C-alpha cells in the first residue's frame, strides 16, 4: 500500500447529559513534531487549559503539580528477579545520556524535583521468567518520580508498575529497549479516588526490538499518561495497549505519540475504556507521525469507548500525519457507543440475569485487549477489578 502525504485528524466525542462538545471543531495548526521538549522549567509556562495538549484536562485541579515545589517520594517496594539491578543516576548524567526530554510542564517539574533517577537494569541476553515488580504507594503527599528502565540487547523482560494509595504524583518514566530485546511494561493505576497522577512515559525501541507498553487505569481522581514511542533503529515494533474504567468524578486521559523516524518499524495502539456515572470523563489522543525517512512503516491505532450510564463523556482523537508515500500500512479507528440493550436482551432471553449479562458484555468488550496482555497476574486481577467496578453500580 502506498499513500500520498496525508494529514488527517478526526475528533469524536460522545457525551450524554449536559456536557457540551468542545472537541469537535478542533484542527491542529502544527505538526506533532514541533512540540517543545526541554530540561528547562522556564520553557513550559503553567498551562491555562487552552493549549492543544491541555484542552481536555482540568488544569485548575493540577496546580500543585505545576509548581516548583519539592515533594516526598512514593513508598517503593520492589521484587527483582535474579540479575536485575537497581541503582541511581544523577541529573547531569541523565541529561547527557540523550534520552527523551520532558515534553510538558508536569514532566519538566518531575525531572527537576525528583531527588535522583532510579535505574532498573536488565542485563543483555537475560531471559526473565518472572516479572520485575514495583509497587509505588502514595501517602497523601506531593511526589515526583523519575525512573529509567534499561533492557540490554536481546534480553526478555516484563516490568509491572503498580500505583496505589493517595498522592499528587508527577513522573517521568523512560524505557530504553536494547536491540533485539523483547520488553513488556505494564503500568497499573489503582489509586485512591483523590489521587492526581501526571506521567510521561518514553519508550525507545531498539533495532529489531519488540516493546509493549500496557496502561491499566482504574483508580485516581485525575490520571493523565502521555506515552511516547520512538525507534532507535529499523525493524522495531511498538505495541501500546490500554484498558481504563472511569467512574463518577474521575478524569482519565491517555495520550499516545508514536514517532516513526526509522524505516520498517511497526506500531499498533489499542485502547478500550468503559465509563459510568456523572462526570466520568475519559480522553484518548493517538498521534502517529510517519516521517519522510520512515519507509515501510506499518501502523494502526484503535480506541473504543463503552458508555454505561448517562452523564459520562468520552473524547477520542486519532491523528495520523504521513510524510512519506512508501509505507506498508496506516490506519486508525475510533468509536464510542452506549451500552447495547439488544445484547442485554439477547443474554437475558437465555435466562441470564441482568447483572451477569452486563458483566459478560463488558468483559467481552475488554476481552480482545485483556487476553493479549500476556501477564497472567495482571489479566486476572484486571478482570476481577472490572467486575468490582460493575458491582459498585449494580
Amino acid at each position, binding site marked *: 500500500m502506498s499513500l500520498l502525504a496525508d494529514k488527517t485528524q478526526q475528533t469524536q466525542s460522545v457525551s450524554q447529559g449536559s456536557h457540551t462538545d468542545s472537541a469537535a471543531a478542533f484542527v491542529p495548526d502544527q505538526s506533532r513534531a514541533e512540540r517543545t521538549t526541554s530540561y528547562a522549567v522556564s520553557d513550559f509556562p503553567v498551562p491555562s487549559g487552552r493549549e492543544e495538549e491541555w484542552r481536555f484536562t482540568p488544569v485548575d485541579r493540577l496546580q500543585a503539580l505545576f509548581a516548583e515545589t519539592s515533594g516526598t517520594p512514593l513508598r517503593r517496594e520492589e521484587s527483582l528477579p535474579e540479575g536485575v539491578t537497581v541503582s541511581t543516576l544523577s541529573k547531569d548524567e541523565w541529561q547527557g545520556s540523550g534520552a527523551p526530554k520532558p515534553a510538558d510542564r508536569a514532566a519538566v517539574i518531575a525531572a527537576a524535583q525528583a531527588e535522583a533517577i532510579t535505574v532498573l537494569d536488565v542485563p543483555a541476553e537475560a531471559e526473565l521468567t518472572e516479572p520485575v515488580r514495583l509497587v509505588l504507594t502514595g501517602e497523601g503527599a506531593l511526589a515526583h518520580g523519575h525512573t529509567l528502565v534499561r533492557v540490554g540487547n536481546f534480553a526478555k523482560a516484563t516490568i509491572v508498575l503498580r500505583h496505589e494509595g493517595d498522592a499528587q504524583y508527577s513522573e517521568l518514566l523512560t524505557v530504553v529497549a536494547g536491540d533485539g530485546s523483547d520488553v513488556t511494561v505494564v503500568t497499573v493505576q489503582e489509586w485512591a479516588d483523590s489521587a492526581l497522577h501526571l506521567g510521561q512515559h518514553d519508550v525507545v525501541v531498539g533495532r529489531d526490538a519488540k516493546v509493549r507498553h500496557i496502561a491499566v487505569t482504574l483508580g485516581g481522581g485525575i490520571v493523565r499518561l502521555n506515552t511516547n514511542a520512538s525507534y532507535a533503529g529499523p525493524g522495531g515494533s511498538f505495541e501500546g495497549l490500554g484498558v481504563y474504567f472511569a467512574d463518577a468524578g474521575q478524569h482519565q486521559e491517555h495520550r499516545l505519540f508514536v514517532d516513526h523516524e526509522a524505516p520498517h518499524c511497526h506500531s499498533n495502539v489499542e485502547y478500550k475504556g468503559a465509563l459510568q456515572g456523572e462526570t466520568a470523563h475519559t480522553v484518548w489522543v493517538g498521534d502517529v507521525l510517519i516521517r519522510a525517512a520512515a519507509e515501510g512503516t506499518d501502523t494502526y491505532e484503535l480506541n473504543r469507548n463503552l458508555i454505561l450510564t448517562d452523564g459520562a463523556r468520552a473524547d477520542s482523537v486519532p491523528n495520523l500525519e504521513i510524510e512519506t508515500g512508501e509505507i506498508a500500512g496506516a490506519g486508525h479507528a475510533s468509536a464510542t457507543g452506549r451500552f*447495547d*440493550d*439488544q*445484547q442485554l*436482551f*439477547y*443474554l*437475558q*432471553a*437465555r*435466562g*441470564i*440475569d*441482568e447483572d*451477569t*449479562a452486563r458483566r*459478560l*458484555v463488558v*468483559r*467481552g*468488550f*475488554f*476481552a*480482545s485487549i485483556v487476553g493479549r496482555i500476556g501477564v497472567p497476574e495482571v489479566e486476572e486481577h484486571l478482570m476481577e477489578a472490572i467486575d468490582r467496578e460493575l458491582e459498585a453500580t449494580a
Partner: protein
Amino acid sequence: MSTVESSTLEIRDLHVTVETEQGTKEILRGVTLTINSGETHAIMGPNGSGKSTLAYSIAGHPKYTITSGTVTLNGEDVLEMSVDERARAGLFLAMQYPVEVPGVTVSNFLRTAKTAIDGEAPKLRTWVKDLKQSMSDLKMDAAVAERGVNEGFSGGEKKRHEILQMELLKPKIAILDETDSGLDVDALRIVSEGVNRAKESTGAGVLLITHYTRILRYIKPDFVHVFVDGKIAEEGGPELADRLEAEGYDRFQSANATS
C-alpha cells in the same frame, strides 16, 4: 423418552403497541392462541404483519408495550416476569436476527445460560459431551465454540446457533421466529432436524413463525394460523399451509382491507 410434565402457554386477546416517530402504533390487535407441550403451531403471515412483535412480546422485549390481554405459562403470569425469568420459566425465543455479543465466547455463553436455566452448573463431563454432540449434529464447526457469540457468523451459522441453544437449554415452549430465513436447502434440513430432535427429547411445544411453507416439509405442524395485520385471520390444520402455498396471502389481505 420424555418425563416432562405437560405445559401450556396461553395468549389471550393480546394488544401491543410500539413507539414510533409518528407516535404510538398498535401492532398486535387481539391475539389469542394456546400452545401445549408436544404441539407444533405454525404462524404464517406476510411481512410486517406483526409476527416478530408477537414473539418479542412473549419474550419480554422492552421495546413493546402490552396494552391489554394476558400471557400465562402453566397459569403463571408471564407478563409480570423479567426477560430472564421468562426464560428460566421455560420459554425460549430463537430470534429472526440473533444479536452479536463480541468477546463473549459461545462456550462461555452457553454454559452461563445453562447454569442460569437449570439453577446449577451442568456437570462438566456430560456438558462438554452434549455440547460437542449437538454441535456436530447441527454440522457446526467445533471451533465456533471459541468464537464470540454470533460475532461474524454467517446467516446460517446464526440460525444453527439458535437451535443449538434450544437443544441444550431444553425449553418447555419454544418460539422460532423465521428460523428458516436465509437458509439453503441443506441447512434448512439440518436445522429442522435439530428442532425435531429437541422436540422429541423434551416434548416441547413449538410456535414456528414463518413466511414460507418450505420449512413445514421438515417440521410438521399440528395447527396453522394465518397472521394478518396484527391478529389471527384464519386457523386450521396442516392443509391450510398447502392452501397458502397455492393461493398466497392476498385473499386475507384484501378481506382485511374491506372489513
